[in-house]
């Protein structure tokens, strides 16, 4: 596989990641979102592996495997199980309607592209153009968190945001040092357990996972 | 040594003059007034007779009166006489003159008033309190105007010392100063207010609602009343003498020659007679003002004094 080809494949994967990010923004059903999220994880994992292969950085394989396990299997499974177990309504409710969010999302992508332009100039890596996509994914994940009403969808948005971070880490820098990668993975795992626990706590205290219930702590009169 | 002796003699002569001439001026004013109003008068000496009579009368004190009530007449008398020793009435070489300049003099009168007002409140009647309150109000408003007037005069003489002020006016060549004219006008208005004459107060009234000074001394009797009345007459005389010393000091005795002293006493008598006539001329056609019109009256005095000062800076 030549470097050029790898770059092309990576570019395609980046586009797919972006697409799934938009998909998360547009998807109305929770299961659909979970699938999209798993898909995004898969693309990320493949992308990491390809970068590792082309750059000859073997620790990236570890990241790729970690990503594959965590983001494609473990986390979606946990979420799936929770949604199933907690009888969460399948429809996603959102605050801002979807076309508007899409428009905002497009604006964010353009903004990210503009923002990363100076960085792109500097980089000598083959993956340099993917940084804009990574930042866009972060922003889109953020947008999902802002516009959705349920705790589960917020978590999905959060995880998508982290996917963007990982993508940035692999694409912009060929991956962080392994110790960092491992630590980050561990943290995410703990986070997954914690939000799992949380869902039960929320569920038992509020009888719902709707964030509307959790707006009591406020200071307006 | 002789100058010291001379000045001490002058001092005692002046105190004697002040003590004796006070009732005389009051008698003169009353007499002229009676004549003006077509009444027969009791003569110039009537105030002396009044005071003598009061001295031999018993003192009846209100049940509630404290030592302040009894002490006040003496203090008022003392303060007034002290003022009499300071104002250059017949001479400018008084040894006690430097003891107080005009500001201190005003304060000495203020102290007498302070105690009179306390005495007015001491008996615990409504009238006394009313008198005290009103008297203090009038004094409050008169004081700034007084200071402005004095300030103008002291600008001319460069001093607030009374003897010095009188001396400067006598020794300098005579000239018409608008500032002094305005200051004099203001001074007259203030003196009217301070000595409790018409139109601010009526010294002869005993109507409850028109009294100011009289209301405060309503509960006094016997020798206390005598002292207060006497002090009041001296005060009128002193204000007249003060005005004369500040604005028309010509004829006042200096350090030398010796014969000027009797001459000064004579000049003083003439000037006082004129002042008395002026008082009568002012008082006869006027009625007493309402208490809250006094504000305007004294405001006018303040205005005159301020114009006097401004004209000093702008015209002279």
């Amino acid at each position, binding site marked *: 596989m030549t470097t050029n080809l790898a770059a092309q494949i990576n570019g395609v994967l980046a586009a797919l990641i972006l697409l799934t990010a938009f998909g998360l923004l547009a998807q109305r059903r929770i299961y659909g979102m979970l699938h999209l999220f798993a898909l995004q994880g898969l693309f990320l994992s493949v992308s990491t592996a390809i970068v590792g292969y082309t750059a000859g950085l073997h620790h990236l394989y570890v990241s790729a495997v970690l990503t594959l396990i965590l983001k494609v299997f473990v986390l979606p499974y946990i979420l799936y199980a929770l949604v199933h177990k907690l009888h969460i309504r399948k429809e996603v409710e959102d605050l801002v309607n979807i076309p508007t969010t899409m428009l905002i999302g497009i604006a964010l992508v353009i903004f990210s592209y503009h923002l990363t332009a100076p960085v792109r100039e500097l980089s000598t890596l083959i993956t340099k153009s993917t940084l804009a996509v990574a930042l866009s994914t972060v922003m889109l994940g953020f947008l999902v968190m802002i516009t959705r009403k349920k705790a589960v969808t917020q978590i999905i948005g959060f995880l998508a945001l982290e996917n963007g971070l990982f993508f940035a880490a692999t694409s912009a820098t060929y991956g962080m040092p392994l110790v960092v990668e491992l630590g980050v993975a561990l943290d995410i795992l703990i986070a997954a357990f914690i939000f799992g626990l949380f869902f039960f706590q929320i569920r038992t205290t509020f009888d719902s996972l709707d964030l509307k219930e959790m707006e009591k702590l406020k200071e307006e009169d | 040594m002789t100058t010291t002796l001379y000045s001490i003699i002058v001092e005692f002569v002046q105190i004697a003059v002040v003590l004796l001439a006070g009732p005389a001026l009051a008698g003169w004013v009353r007499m002229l007034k009676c004549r003006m109003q077509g009444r027969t008068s009791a003569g110039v000496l009537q105030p002396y007779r009044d005071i003598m009579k009061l001295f031999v009368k018993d003192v009846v004190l209100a049940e509630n009166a404290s030592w302040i009530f009894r002490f006040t007449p003496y203090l008022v008398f003392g303060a007034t006489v002290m003022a009499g020793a300071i104002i250059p009435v017949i001479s400018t070489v008084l040894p006690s003159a430097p003891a107080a300049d005009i500001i201190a003099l005003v304060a000495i009168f203020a102290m007498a008033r302070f105690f009179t007002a306390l005495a007015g409140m001491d008996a615990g009647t409504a009238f006394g309190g009313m008198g005290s309150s009103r008297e203090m109000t009038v004094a409050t408003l008169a004081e700034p105007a007084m200071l402005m007037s004095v300030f103008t005069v002291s600008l001319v003489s460069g001093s607030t010392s009374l003897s010095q002020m009188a001396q400067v006016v006598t020794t300098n060549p005579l000239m018409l100063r608008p500032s002094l004219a305005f200051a004099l006008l203001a001074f007259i208005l203030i003196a009217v207010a301070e000595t409790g004459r018409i139109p601010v107060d009526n010294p002869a009234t005993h109507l409850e609602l028109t009294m100011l000074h009289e209301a405060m001394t309503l509960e006094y009797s016997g020798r206390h009343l005598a002292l207060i009345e006497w002090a009041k007459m001296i005060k009128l005389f002193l204000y007249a003498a003060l005005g004369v010393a500040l604005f028309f000091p010509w004829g006042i005795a200096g350090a030398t020659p010796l014969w000027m002293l009797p001459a000064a006493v004579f000049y003083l008598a003439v000037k006082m007679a004129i002042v008395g006539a002026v008082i009568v001329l002012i008082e006869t056609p006027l009625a007493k003002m309402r*208490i809250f019109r006094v504000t305007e009256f004294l405001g006018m005095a303040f205005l005159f004094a301020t114009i006097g000062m401004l004209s000093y800076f702008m015209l002279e």
Partner: protein
Amino acid sequence: MTMPSPMALAVYSVVILLIMAISALVFKSRQGFLVNAVFAFSSLACVMALTAGFQAVSNGAVETLILPIGLPDLPFYLRIDALSGFFIAIIGLLGLFVSIYSLGYVRGFVGQRSITSLAVFYPLFMAGMILVVISDDAYFFMIAWELMAVSSFFLVCFEDESGANRRAAFIYLLIAHIGAVMILLSFGLMAGFASGFENFKGYTFSAMRGAHISPGWASAAFLLAFFGFAAKAGVVPLHVWLPEAHPAAPSNVSALMSGVMLKTALYGIIRLTFDILTVSQWWWGGIVLVLGLISAVTGILYAIMQVDLKRALAYSSVENVGIILISIGLSMIFTAHKMHELASLALIAGLYHSLNHAMFKGLLFMGAGAILHATHERNMERMGGLIHKLPWTATLFLIGCLSISAMPPFNGFVSEWLTFQAFLLSPALPNPILKLLFPLGAALLALTAALSARCFVKVYSVTFLGRWRGEHPCAAREVNWPMKAGMCLCAASCLLLGVFPTAVIGWADMAPLILIGAKISVSAKTFGWLWLTPVSSVRASYSAPVIFIGITAVVAAAYAVFHSRRSSKTALTRAPVWGCGFEKLTNRMQYNSTSFAMPLRRIFGFLMMIKESVTPQDANAHGAFQRKFVYRLMINDRVWYLLYKPFSKAAFWCARKAGFMQHGRIQIYLLYSFITLIVLLVFA
């Protein structure tokens, strides 16, 4: 044995006070002992402070000391010169009298409530004041300054059951702290220009003295510091805490707060403008003068309107601070025009009035405390005739009233007379506008003096003269001897300071000498020690001894002649009051505080917020057939509504808006972060 140096004495006295504060905590279970120990030792410390101050002024030497605490690069610098010596003397003198008084006064609380906090914070308060005037760097000054503020805050809070007291303490502390921060900023400005800011050496006053500050920043520093100090001094319009806090505090504390704590603020102004910054622009003095005049007039007008005795005294403190500021302002203007003789005359007037005010206001507050102690009453409308029950207090209080009303030969008159002299010399100024405006200022000062006489006639006569107005019969008893002793000493010093001004000026003249470089005692003394003649003997002169002896002699003579001549007649007849023949007089028909103040309320009412209402008690009956009417009168401080209310309203409005941020919705919070991120990315 040689006398310890002023610095040593001052430091020892502070140490004694601090030890007292700590030991008060240790002995808190033995309250009676605590009263004796704390106030006896405080008296001792005050004597030491007084000696230190007296010596420092008469020596005129500058003494410095560096304490090895604080920051390693910024230890505590101490310095005593004539100016600080003068103020230490004031603190020591009144502190001594008040501490003696407190021996009796505080004992009244024992058994009723715990006096531990009083015993802890009273010495701390004293120590804070002494430290303020001897500190010589910005850091230590601020510590001392706030120590003074905090300890007096706790003293104001001493009787904390009442919500009004707590509120008063709160307002006091708030304004004091805002002022302190302003002072701090001013120090920061000056230190910034001084060399060695980076290594903390710029914070010393000596470094600030050497700093070359551009005029604009110097003015900024002056304004910050002036308003900071003015908040503490109770200058209108920053005075609102004062009439709240003084009545709330125990009377011995009010005496100290009013008598000396306000003076430390004036000390700050003098130290900063004359010593550290050196007056460079005349308008600084103009601001001080104008605010002084406003404070003097409004202060006394509000004082007249009060029915609460201690509130009236508090407002009168506003007035007196105004008078002192007038002198300081004059002095600054003269200094800016390089007229050093006149400047030192004005400054001496201000300093003298500070000393005098400490004495008579201390005396009056102690007197008010005595009345409170005896009658448990602060409202003058329910007093009257106390001169019969409290003869000592009445006489001593009268001396205080005479002094504060500027009656010769008492001390208040001397300093006001000096201020007038300074005013009357202002035509020498080269600036024509100032020439014209100054006399008007003098007229306002005259108005103030007259109003203050009126105020204290009212206060004294309503409280002590006439008949008792309370509902229950008066059960007052004369106070105990330490209280009497404290007041007697104060009264004696009022008289002595009034009668021997030349001696005092000769002593205090060192302060203007070091600050301005000129002194007035030379001219004041050419005419002999008996005569006070600033500038020259032809210009003006005043001799308190002559007047005092003269009036006493005439009074004695008159008494001898007219009173005791015929012994049979000296027996007086007592009879019911005459009252123009009206026989059904009751105690409630007397003139009271409100009615006494009525004419002035009509004349100067526009300066106040007056709410007056007369409501018939029986609403059904016709107005002409009412048995009773209810008369209500509320006099509020206009400044409160003009300045503070809008401020607090605005603050609460902002708070409500800030509350919107905490919206409760997590999406909104996320949106904040998101927007922050985007905005930063766009702009950075």
